[in-house]
Each structure stands twice: as C-alpha cells, then as structure tokens.
C-alpha cells in the first residue's frame, strides 16, 4: 500500500511516521510537501504530529488552511483513508474535516507519557481490533483537551464517531484515566463515513518493543489489512 506523510513547516513526527510505515510495516511511503495539490496516487494520507507553523495562533490553525489540505479534503471525499495524529488531529479539526476543537490541557502543561485507549468502534484503522480492546500508546501534547458542545457530543455518539476513549489499564473509562480533560474521555474521533480519523496519542511511537511498546502496529496493520480488502478477524 502507498502512504503519504504530509510535511508542514514545523511537523516533527513526520520522520517517525515514515519510519513506522516504511521500515517497520514494510509499506511504500513518501514525504509530501505541504504545497502538494494532488494526493490521488495514495491509499492513505497521514498528517503527522509536531508544531505546524509553530502553533502560534491555535494548534493546527494555519496548517488547516494550507494547499495540501484542499487535496486532503478531495481525497477524503473520494473515500481515501486519512489519519491525523496529534497536531495532525488538530489540523483536521481546524480544516473542518472533523467536528470539535482543542483546548489547552486541563493541567495547563505539556503532558508526555503512556495512556490507555479503549477501542469504541470499527473503522479502517481499527479494522483488525475489536470493540473494547485496550491499547497502550504515548501522548505528547499541550493542547489535547478535546471539546465539543453537548449537542455536538450527542451527535457524535449518535453517529458512532468516537473511535477511542482514554481508559485505565482494564478498559474502564474513568476521570483519572483522562490525561487532558477531554470531553467524555475522547481520544480519537472519525467522520461519519469513518475514513478520516483524528487521534491525540502517537501510534507511530510504539511500533517496536525496544521503544517501549508495539500497540501502534495494530493501528497501521488494521489500515493495511482494510486496504487489502481482508476480512475482519
């Protein structure tokens, strides 16, 4: 499968995503510059983490307006898979491809460390996982406090758009397991069609045991399996 890793000025997890896809998962991957306007060659587009344009305005606000996002919009409209990780998630929100917004973490500090996520539904990126499965992945952000007004949350839930929630190691959704104050412990949401996913945790960081975990492989592996047209296990 062919993956595009978009590089905005200030992206800094682009190399990590590329390595995870190309070196670990053995897929074809290209860096795609933020001025690119055609993504039709790809099966999946990844918007990596970082601090695009320094995140000086609001996280992802300027990148959300860049030329490549118009191409991402078209790509998504045709059903292509789009994964926004951390800053990539923030960019998808700012570009209007996903509902909601990010606030600063409740602690008002940058938070780096492991969290547990409960898989809430099937999407291409959770294709090989089951509902209720628990993943351990790292977060690293200062603005990951997902917000959506109550009607919006009802709408999200009604359309089953919450893909991951922060949970404890046994899968229980508790306030203590919420690292940033996100509404309803939301860690990742998708569009109604399910082909665009934004998530704060970093799957690309846990793809090798030597780095502390391998649960990230399950996400990328799911996308690959889905694209190959394989059945859900």
């Amino acid at each position, binding site marked *: 499968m062919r993956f595009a890793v978009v590089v905005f*000025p*200030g992206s*800094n*997890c682009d*190399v*990590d995503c590329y*390595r*995870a896809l190309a070196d670990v998962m053995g897929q074809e991957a290209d860096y795609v510059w933020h001025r690119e306007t055609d993504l039709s060659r790809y099966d999946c587009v990844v918007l990596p*983490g*970082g*601090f695009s*344009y*320094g*995140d*000086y305005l609001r996280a992802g606000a300027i990148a959300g307006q860049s030329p490549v996002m118009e191409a991402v919009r078209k790509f998504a409209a045709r059903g292509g898979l789009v994964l926004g990780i951390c800053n990539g998630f923030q960019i998808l929100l700012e570009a209007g491809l996903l509902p909601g917004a990010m606030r600063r973490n409740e602690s008002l*500090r*940058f*938070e*780096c*460390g492991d969290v547990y996520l409960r898989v809430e539904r099937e999407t291409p990126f959770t294709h090989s996982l089951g509902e209720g499965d628990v993943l351990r992945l*790292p977060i*690293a952000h*200062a603005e990951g406090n997902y917000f959506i007004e109550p009607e919006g949350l009802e709408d999200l839930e009604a359309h089953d758009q919450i893909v991951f929630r922060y949970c404890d190691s046994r899968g229980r959704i508790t306030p203590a397991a919420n690292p940033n104050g996100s509404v309803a412990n939301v860690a990742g949401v998708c569009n109604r069609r399910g082909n665009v996913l934004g998530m704060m945790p*970093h799957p*690309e*960081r846990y*793809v*090798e045991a*030597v*780095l*502390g975990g391998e649960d990230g492989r399950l996400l990328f592996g799911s996308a690959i399996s889905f694209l190959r047209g394989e059945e859900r296990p």
Partner: protein
Amino acid sequence: MKAPWRDMGLRDSEYERICELLGREPTWTELGMFAVLWSEHCAYKHSRPVLKLFPTEGPRVLLGPGENAGVVDIGEKVAVAFRIESHNHPIFVEPYQGAATGVGGIVRDILALGARPVALLDSLRFGPLSDDRSRYIFGGVVSGISGYGNCLGIPTVGGETFFHEAYRQNPLCNVMCVGLVPRDRIRRGVAAGVGNSVMLIGAPTGRDGIHGATFASEELGEDSESRRPSVQVGNPFLEKLLIEACLELTEADAVVGIQDMGAAGITSSCAETAARAGTGVEIDVERVPLRERGMTPYEIMLSESQERMLVIVKRGREDEVRRICDKWGIACAVIGRVTDDGIFRVREGDQVVAEVPARALTASAPVYEPPAEEMPEAIRAREADLSGLPRPEDYTAVLRRLLSSPNLAAKRWVWRQYDFQVRTSTVLAPGADAAVIRVPSTRKALALATDANGRYCYLRPRRGGAIAVAEAARNVVVVGAEPIAITNCLNFGNPERPGVMFQFRECVRGMAEACRALGTPVTGGNVSFYNETAGQNIFPTPTVGMLGLVEDLDHVTRPGFVSPGDWVILLGRNTEEIGASEYLKVVHALDAGEVPALDLELEVRVQRLCLEVIRAGLVRSAHDVSDGGLAVTLAECAFASPGLGCRVSLGEELPPEALFFGEAQSRIVVTASPEAAREILDLARRRGVPASLIGEVTEGELSLSAGDAVIEARVEELRELWEEGLSWALS
C-alpha cells in the same frame, strides 16, 4: 562620557591593551565588539590556564575544545557531536525565555557541526521550593525548556533537578545537546576561501540581547530586573526551520563553513570563523536584514537575536543557498565576503565603522590568574564534629522523609512536560540512571547522563569534581554503556574572590584526574563565572555531561528489579561515611562533614566489572548508589517494577545511618538469577572487586536490616511519597 568602556565591563588595563593592539583608540562600534568578545563569557580570561589541566585527546576524539562542540567517533562511520552550555543569568531575570533560548543556543552549536540534534538534557539548580520566587523560576524554566525543545522535535531525555538555598539568588540552567553526523560530513565554522560570500540566514536582526555576553559576565544585583532587555526572546518554529535548512545546506557542496550565532552575535561568529581559517572578513551592516528601523552599526554588531546562523558560501553559488532557505521560508542575505588580510572590517555602506584584526578579538584578551585560597567557612563546615548528632529512632520514618524530599523524590512532574520520545529513538526514558538513544541503522546506542554535586564541591572541591565525573560514568555504565567522553559546564561564583578561584581550580583538577583514570577526555564545554548575587556565591557546580556508548542494544539494562527470587548483589564496599549527605541535609539541616572518599582505581574496577557482567548477559538490573544512599537506591529499584520489593541485610558492623543513607562512592546494586549471581561473585573475586550478596528480590515489601536497625515498609506506600513528593512541595 568618561571611560565608557567601564560601563561595557572592560577594565582600564584592558582598554589600554585594545589601544595598543589597534595602535589608536577604538571607534564606538569597535569598543562594543571588544567588550563582548573580551567578556569572561566569551574570552575565558580567568579560566583558560586552569582548563589546560583537562585531558582533551583520545583515540575517539575528532574535534576537541575550541570548536562549536566536541565530536567523537563511535564507529560505523558515525560521529557524535555534543556540548553543554549555561544560561544561568537569563533564567533569573526571565525564566521562560531564558531557558528557551538556552535550548536554542546549544542546538545551533550542534547544528554548526553539520550534525542532526537528537537529544537534549538539562541540569537545573534552584532555590528551595518553599520560596515563592524559586517556585516561579522553577516552573518557568521547565515550561521554557518544554515550549522550545518540544517544538523543535528533539527529545529531552534526561538531566537533573536540585534545590538548595545556595541557588536561591542564582539558579542554574545548563543544557546539553547531542547530535549525530556521518563522519565524512562534519562541518566546521571556518571562513575559508578568499572571495567567498558571508551569508546570514534565519531571523532578522533586532535590538534584543544587546550585551548579553557582558550581562552573563557580571554579578547579579538588586537591579537585575532592569536587565530584562538583555534576555533574548526565542522563536522555536523558526529554529526548527533553521535546523532543517542547515542540514540541507551541509549536504550542499557550495557551503564551506557554518557557524552559529550565539553570544555576541555577528561579531563573534565573523571573528571566530575568520580567526579559525586564518582569513579576514568584511561585512556591510546595511545588508543585514533588520527587524526594526534605525539600528546603529553598534547595535547590529552586538545584537543577540536568536535563530540566526552564519554560512560561508563558495563565490557564485549563493543561489543554491537561497533556494534551500526559500524552501524552508527563512530569510538569507549576503552580508560580506572572506578576505585575505586577517582583518575583520565592518562597513556601513561606504563608511568603515570597525577595522580590527580578527585574532585581536578572539585570541588576544588578557589572561588572569588571581590568587586562590580555600574559604575558611568551607573548611569549618567540612571539619564540623558530627559525632554528637542524635541517631534516628525510626529508620523507616527517615527513609519516608528522604523519599518525599524534593531532591530525592521522583522528577516525573518535570519530565512529563518534555517530549522525550519524538524521533522514535528513546530506548531508556528519563528516570533511569542514564538516558539511552539508539543510533539509527546500527545495533549501537548512546547513553547520556549529567551529574554535579554542589555540596560535595563546596566542602571538598577537588574530590567533588572527581566524583561528578565518576558518578556520571557510573550512570552510563549501569545502563550498559562504556563511558567515552565528557563535556562540562563549570558554574562558579566570582573568580576575583580567592575562595571561588580555589574552588574552580580544585574542582577542575579533580575532574581532570577522574577523566584520566576513566579514559574520558574532555571535548569542550563552557565556563559560567559570576554566579553571585549580593555577595552570595552559589555552591561550586561543575556539571559533567557524559557520553557513553552501548555496543549492542541487547546490553541496555534498567534499574528496576525484574523477578522475585533474584539475588541482590552490591558491587563496591559500604563504609561509615555519612558526611555531605542528603541525609544530613534533610534530617539535620546540615551541609557539613567530610565528602565521601573516592578511590579512582577502585572506581574503575567496579565500573569495568559491572560492564563486563552486563555484556555477558548475567545481570537482570543495575542501579548506581548515589544521593540518599543504599536505602534510597533499593527503594528506587523497587519503584521501577510494580509489585516487587526486596529483603536485604547489611552485615557490616557500622552505624546503621551510614549503611542505609551514607553516600560511599563506587557502589552499584545489581540483581541476577541465583546461578548468574554466583558467576558474578566469582568474577568479582577474580577481578579483585569487592562484591557481596546482600539479599533477594521479593514481592511487595521493602525490608532492610543493619544489625538491630530495620527499615520495613510496603513499597506502594513508599512509592506514593516518592512520586508525589515534588508535587506536594509545589502546592
């Protein structure tokens, strides 16, 4: 104005020397240029003769002191560039920006070598957290490092944080950066090739940070708040673009030399590149992109605006550089050219505003060797009679107090704010004895640690300096690495005081001895003097930045216990030493007593044995014994492994407080399966290293005994004290 040089920090005799070197009186701009490059910060006037004591050569050293950073060879055509630098004065005035720009500056030093920065470490010292201002500075510094470093995508993987009254008026922020570079791509800051272009890339130049280097070379006073304009403001996004652009430039054959622009900005970078290459440089300040209008040549030459680099480019190939800068959206401009006359000439259009031999700026500053004499109060503190101190009634209660004290408590509150995983190379994250970063495309990894103990250095500077090196080496050994080289950041008070000069000379002497014994040459670093406020000097604090090399990722070893039933072995020997310990500080509020002895020969043997048994695959866990002593060390081994504890009994007939909390040097706790443990003990006998079986790994309880004295507690209960100690001190 009478004697304007005095306001710029120059002595009358230095002014006279400048007149002699020039054969005339300097212009205003020239005077400013001399003032910054002859500041203590840039010229090492009081430290140079002493620094000669350091061993600087070794088979791995490719570039040593005098370059932007040290570079060592780690084999497989890969080299490591690393350096540590202080940003102490700025954080006292403006904690967030002071720390942020400290990160930015050291990153550009590494970048100038053509290396990709891959790790940051921070060695921090603050006043006690009971003090409002110290809490404010601490929080600001940590968020400044976080805000800047995280944005760059360079993981902050380690360091240390220590609180003490000695740093109340003079906190320390030392930042270490480590970079990787293919051996054949190492770049140097040279203005070579007459006629080549001098280009400035990155941020436009503004009025920020004028005379920052001079500020760094003064004592702080009552009016330090008013020095806020001397602190620069960082733009990490621009620095990130600058990193990517510079790394592309280093691959371009059009580029001859790269130099970072730190203290003293354009003045130092031009003078240094010319002096290194034995050439001259001529620039025109009218061609420097400016941030604000009406800047004088003097201001342009002395500005310390951040995120700028100087690039020397082959004549006629400037467009290749422009293309790369355009791609990354950063400004660039040709500001001058390389000449053959050894002169650094500055024009403003047609008018020459400065014309100085480059070497007069970089190599002709006077050297001072002021008198040195040990401070009587340090002698008194060292020789204090500690025999009358009451013995604890409850050793478990003492351990609880130690574990929750800010200096020994977990530092998670700090390092959770740092992105320590970006670049997906971090094998050992903060919290272990040393951080471990893998080297892409090899089985190798780098082990990184910083260490300094100001109290030891205050009470017995020579030994304290040696211990800083020995302990930093031990820190990388226990994670499975061979110590290969150090960088250092020497933080001291006012060198014009004999007591401070004594501390400086003796610390360096001790460090040099340890470096020789351990085979770790000094590849560079930085001296920060004048850490004195209102007559109060800091503890002498020479920070060691240690580089260790892990030959194979399989050797990486962690501090935490692994399996119940494993044997706990102590390499090295317990002693009755209790002086200079955290125990005395926390329990008796004393900075006193004799510093633990350091037998370098024993230290080397302990370290070699530890590395040998790790590499042989015999060891399940390893942890250095340091601040807080053996009891704290064993507790930390348990904290790192949920559910596990240990039962240890110490057989020596020594005072229990010394056995539990004394800080005797050259000790390492390792655990191993019983069979492997027998092999370790046997090897230790053959290698002549003291080693003893002291207990076994158990579940859930920490149980230590020394004669009748015992420490008994549930690990989970201790863990909470240790994990939350720092947060409690902050709230």
